[in-house]
């Protein structure tokens, strides 16, 4: 596509504006984590690493991070197993109501978190008689984590078709061997991308968590939410936020790398 010089300048300015709008607040968070002022005075009267050491020593923050990591990892693992199996089943076998099942799997991501949260909490407490806790929290997160894994897996399976698997069986490999040596490696990058997204979704989930975590369990988003407006804790919260910004770069970078391997898969087809 070609643009006139004027349009080009305009487009550049607009792109710059959007980037500024997104990244200025993030930069502010990072900057403020070194601000000497407890109330984030602007411009900062001075810079200090005091809040960073306070954050490292804060038990609440540390526990919350550990809980969040545990929940995200467990929910992602469950989602990987179930999401992959569901995708395989729906892609391979034609059966009555296949499209409906597919829709039902994807639905949780579209439902308002409040609805899912209440529904799950009710089900756990009344139907199953389970106390809210780690188990219920992980299961609840897995319901929407499955969606991202499922979507990625089924998209990849559709693109691959069944040809490579047929070739494998033709060469003497049974169903399991074929899955292990051919299907799974071909799906790997798609599954990793799905898992990263699923991890990220679980890690910052707050609404469903509020309903299904029970009393004793505090995930990082909940801890941040509860401490943000306490004058003493605000700078520490800010530090945690700044740390998260830096850490988020890693999955983005990994998924960009994966996009590269995806192309080589596409080229082979």
């Amino acid at each position, binding site marked *: 596509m070609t643009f006139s010089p004027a349009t080009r300048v305009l487009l550049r300015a607009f792109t710059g504006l959007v980037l500024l709008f997104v990244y200025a607040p993030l930069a502010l968070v990072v900057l403020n984590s070194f601000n000497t002022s407890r109330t984030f005075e602007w411009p900062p009267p001075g810079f200090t690493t005091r809040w960073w050491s306070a954050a490292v020593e804060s038990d609440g923050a540390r526990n919350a991070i550990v809980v969040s990591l545990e929940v995200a990892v467990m929910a992602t693992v469950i989602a990987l197993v179930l999401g992959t199996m569901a995708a395989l089943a729906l892609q391979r076998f034609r059966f009555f109501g296949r499209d409906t099942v597919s829709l039902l799997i994807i639905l949780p991501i579209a439902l308002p978190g409040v609805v899912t949260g209440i529904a799950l909490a009710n089900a756990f407490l009344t139907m199953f008689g389970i106390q809210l806790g780690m188990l219920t929290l992980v299961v609840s997160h897995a319901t929407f984590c499955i969606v991202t894994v499922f979507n990625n897996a089924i998209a990849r399976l559709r693109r691959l078709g069944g*040809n*490579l698997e*047929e*070739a*494998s*069986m*033709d*060469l*003497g*490999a*049974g169903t399991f*061997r074929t899955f292990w*040596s*051919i299907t799974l*490696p*071909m799906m790997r990058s798609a599954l990793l991308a799905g898992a990263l997204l699923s991890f990220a979704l679980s890690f910052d989930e707050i609404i469903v968590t509020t309903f299904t975590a029970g009393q004793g369990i505090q995930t990082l988003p909940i801890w941040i939410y509860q401490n943000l407006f306490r004058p003493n804790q605000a700078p520490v919260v800010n530090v945690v936020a700044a740390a998260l910004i830096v850490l988020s770069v890693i999955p983005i970078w990994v998924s960009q790398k994966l996009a590269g391997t995806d192309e*080589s*898969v596409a*080229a*082979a*087809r």
Partner: protein
Amino acid sequence: MSTAAVELVGLSKSFGDVTAVDGVDLTIRDGEFFSMLGPSGSGKTTVLRMIAGFEQPTSGSVHLAGQDVTGRPPFARDVNTVFQDYALFPHMDVLANVEYGLRVKKVPRPERRERAMAALDSVQLGDLAARRPTQLSGGQRQRVALARALVNRPRVLLLDEPLGALDLKLRRAMQLELKQIQREVGITFVFVTHDQEEALTMSDRIAVFRDGRIEQVATPADLYESPTSPFVAGFVGTSNLLDGGAAQTVVGRPGMFSIRPEKIHLGDDVRDGDATAPGVVQDVVYLGSVNHYLVELDAGPTLTVLRQNLRGTTDEAMALRGQRVTVGWAPEHVIELGPHQQLEKEES
């Protein structure tokens, strides 16, 4: 006769309303280069997939080396397939691709290596063992697919239009190479193609498919010289059909007949003892070493006549356009296609 490598008995396959294969009976001999020829959609691939075990027949049975294997999955059949799009594993290098079948069968590593390398050498790809399939040309991929199948020393090798994606020159070269490999290894080849020339050059026998049925099974020479139906006559070579009133006038009796273009003599070439018919040259098609003359007979039908450019100039040949000529042929070159068959127009 030794036991048949492949035997198909009353084989049929329907996909919903579509009958892809409709009652195929076929015996393929051990060590034979057997081709399945037919227009697009005539059921060749479906038959091949039922032999390989990817598709379950709706009725009928598949026998390999005398054993009924109809219900067996692909991995429990002693056949290997070369797929049309090769289906090489993109996440493995060439050597790993070729070794795959042996690894699955738990052949010890040194032997596996050796056999895989030998297979790659036999298709002249020993140097490219470490490459990925994406780094190969179409012809090279085709050879890898062949090596990957042959290394398992199957009883039967199934090839579904393996040369379809190659350009004409490479295709010709691979045809010769495939035929040579087949002679060396002595494995039964079942080769699917819709290219009649390819089938004629490579095969010991050919089955012509039409609408899920077999029209005729014969050697290339028999198929060309004595086709049993107008469809086969038209699909294998150019047929020059004479039927109805034209048959009566030109051949002298009712029925349906065909005369191959190269068997028809034109003008001065007509010999003593030839049956003759008058006509007008409608067009002359220059094809380099030969010319095609389209001659509309006074009796109705238009015949294609092929004449080698042995003498005379191209201009002289072209000047025949619009001229009245006499065409003739030896009576024994008239192929009788059966008296009462209805000619159907067939597009391929």
